[in-house]
C-alpha cells in the first residue's frame, strides 16, 4: 500500500542551521493499517508525513503509494491518493470560503477541474447529510465562511474533506494537538469512526501515548530521523505508557524528555 524506502532528508544542508530530519526511513504499510506515530520533538514525524505528501522533495530514497512511484510527483498530484489533516486548524480549510465550497473543492481532489459548476445541487444534499453525521450542527451553516468556525469544527470539516473522496492513505499530523481536551476527544472519536467506516489506511502522528496505544493496529516510534520501534497486533494492544518510555530509553539511550508527552 505505502512503501517508503531509505528516505533521507536534510534541511539547510551546508549551513549552520543544518538539520538532519530523516536518516534512512523504511516503512511499509498494508491495506487497512491504522498506524500511530510517536516520538520526541524533532524526531522527524511530521517530516515523514510531509515527504509522503510531497511538501518537500526527498534527498534520496523512494516513496510508493499503491505501486505508483510518487517520489517525483508534485504535491498537488499526490493529493489524488492522500487525505490530509494538519495540526493547525487554519491550514486545512480556506477561511474565506463557505463550508460547502471547501467540501466541493475537496470532492474534486484528484479529478480534472473544468468549467462546470464548482458545486451542484446534488452535491449540496450529499454534503448536508455528511455534515449531519458529524453531529456539530454544521449542516445548517453550509454557507457560512469556514473562518467563522471554531478550531474543533474546522478540524472536523477538514477530516470530512480528507475522506470525502476516499483516499488511499489518510495522513493525520497531530490533528488534535491544538484543540482543548474535550474537543480533541470529539475529533478523535470522529477520526476513529471515519477510518473504521471507510477502512482507511491511516498514518496518525500523536503526542498522546495513551491515544497512540488505544487507537490503530500498529504503533511506530521515531527518534532522530529513524524508526526505532515498530509494534503491532496483540503486543501493541497490551502496551502501557511506561513500556513505551522504557522502550524509548532503551533504544535511544536518552530519557524521554518531552513535557508534552509526559503530561498527557
Amino acid at each position, binding site marked *: 500500500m505505502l512503501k517508503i524506502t531509505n528516505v533521507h532528508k536534510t534541511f539547510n544542508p551546508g549551513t549552520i542551521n543544518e538539520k538532519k530530519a530523516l536518516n534512512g526511513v523504511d516503512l511499509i504499510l498494508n491495506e487497512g493499517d491504522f498506524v500511530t506515530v510517536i516520538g520526541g520533538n524533532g524526531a522527524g514525524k*511530521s517530516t515523514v508525513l510531509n515527504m509522503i*505528501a510531497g511538501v518537500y522533495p526527498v534527498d534520496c530514497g523512494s516513496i510508493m503509494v499503491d505501486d505508483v512511484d510518487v517520489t517525483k510527483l*508534485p*504535491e*498537488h*498530484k499526490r*493529493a*489524488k491518493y*492522500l487525505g*490530509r489533516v*494538519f*495540526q*493547525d486548524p*487554519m*491550514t*486545512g*480549510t*480556506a*477561511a*474565506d*470560503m463557505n463550508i460547502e*465550497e*471547501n467540501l*466541493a*473543492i*475537496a470532492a*474534486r*481532489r*484528484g*479529478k480534472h*477541474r*473544468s*468549467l*462546470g*459548476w*464548482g*458545486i451542484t445541487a446534488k452535491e449540496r444534499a450529499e454534503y448536508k447529510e455528511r455534515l449531519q453525521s458529524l453531529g456539530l450542527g454544521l449542516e445548517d451553516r453550509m454557507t457560512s465562511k469556514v*473562518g467563522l468556525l471554531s478550531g474543533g469544527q474546522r478540524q472536523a470539516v477538514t477530516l470530512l*474533506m480528507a475522506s470525502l473522496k476516499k483516499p488511499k492513505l489518510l495522513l493525520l*499530523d497531530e490533528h488534535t494537538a491544538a484543540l482543548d481536551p474535550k474537543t480533541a476527544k470529539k475529533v478523535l472519536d470522529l477520526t476513529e469512526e471515519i477510518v473504521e467506516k471507510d477502512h482507511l489506511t491511516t498514518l496518525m502522528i500523536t503526542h498522546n501515548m495513551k491515544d497512540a496505544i488505544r487507537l490503530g493496529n500498529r504503533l511506530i516510534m521515531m527518534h532522530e530521523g529513524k524508526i526505532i520501534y515498530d509494534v503491532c497486533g496483540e503486543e501493541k494492544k497490551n502496551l502501557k505508557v511506561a513500556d513505551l518510555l522504557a522502550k524509548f530509553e532503551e533504544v535511544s539511550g536518552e530519557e524521554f524528555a518531552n513535557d508534552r508527552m509526559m503530561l498527557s
Partner: protein
Amino acid sequence: MAASLMSALPGSVAQGLIWGILAIGVYITYKVLDFADLTVDGSLATGGAVAVMCMINGMHPYLALFLAFCAGMLAGLVTGLFHTALGIPPILSGILTQLGLYSINMRIMGKANQAISVVQYDLIVSLRYIPHACLVTIGFCVVIIGLLYWFFGTEIGAGVRATGCNPNMARAQGVNTNAYKVLGLVLSNGLVGLSGALYAQYQGSSDINMGRGAIVIGLAAVIIGEVIFGKIFHNFALHMVSAVIGAIVYFVVIAVVLQLGLETTDLKLFSALIVALFLAIPYLKGKYFSQTSKKGGNADA
C-alpha cells in the same frame, strides 16, 4: 466653482468606469489571489498602445480591443511565470514585467505618444461624448462582472479562489496552485489591458506614461469600495461592483481636490497618501481598537 465642479463630474464618472475595469483586474490579483501585482502599470499602457496602433492601421475597434486584452494577458503570463516557474517574489515579478513593458510599449508605438482622433476614427468611447462613454463602459462592466461571477463559481474558478485564500489547503486538495496563480494573473492583466485600450481612446491618445501609478489607483478603487460597501455587500459579484464604484468615487474626489486648487502634478502624492491611509486603517483598528484579530489561513503547521 460649484458650477465648474458639476461640469467636471460626468467626465469623472466616465473615467471612473473605465478605470473600474482595471479595478476589477486588481481585485482579482490583490483580493482573490492575495498577490500584489505591479504589472498593472505596464499592462495598462500596453493595452492602450496595442489598441491605438491597431486602429491607426485600420483595424476594427472591437478587434483592436480584443488584441489589447490579449496583450494584457501576455503581460500577466510573464509575471506569473517569473513568480511560479522562476521563483521570483510576487512584487518583484510584477516590477520586472512592468519595467520591461516600458521598452515594449515604446516599440509598439514607435514614439512616446500616439494620438487617435475621434474625428478620424470610429472610437468606442471618447471624452467628446461623455454620456455615450458612460453607457458603453457600464455595458462593459456589467458583462465583465457577469462573466467573472460565472467563472469564479466554476470548478476552476473555485480552485483559483482557494489558491489565493489558502495555498496549503489548495495543494492538499489537488489544486495546481502555480497554474491557477498564473491563470489569475493572466485574467487580471487582460482586463487591465482592456481598460488601457478604452482609456487611450477616451483621452484621444496612448501615452507611454499613462500607466504610471495605475496600481495605486486600482488599489484605491478596491479599498474605497470595500470601505464603503464591505459591510453590506457579501456577494462576489457585488464585491466587483464596489470596486468599480470605488474607482468612480476616486475620480470624483480627484475632481473635487483639483477644484480646490491642487495641481495635477500633486495628484500622485495625493493618491499615494489616500491608499496608504486606507491600507493602514484596518491595521490600526486591529492594533488599537479591538481584541479580535482576523487570523488568516496561511499559518505554518
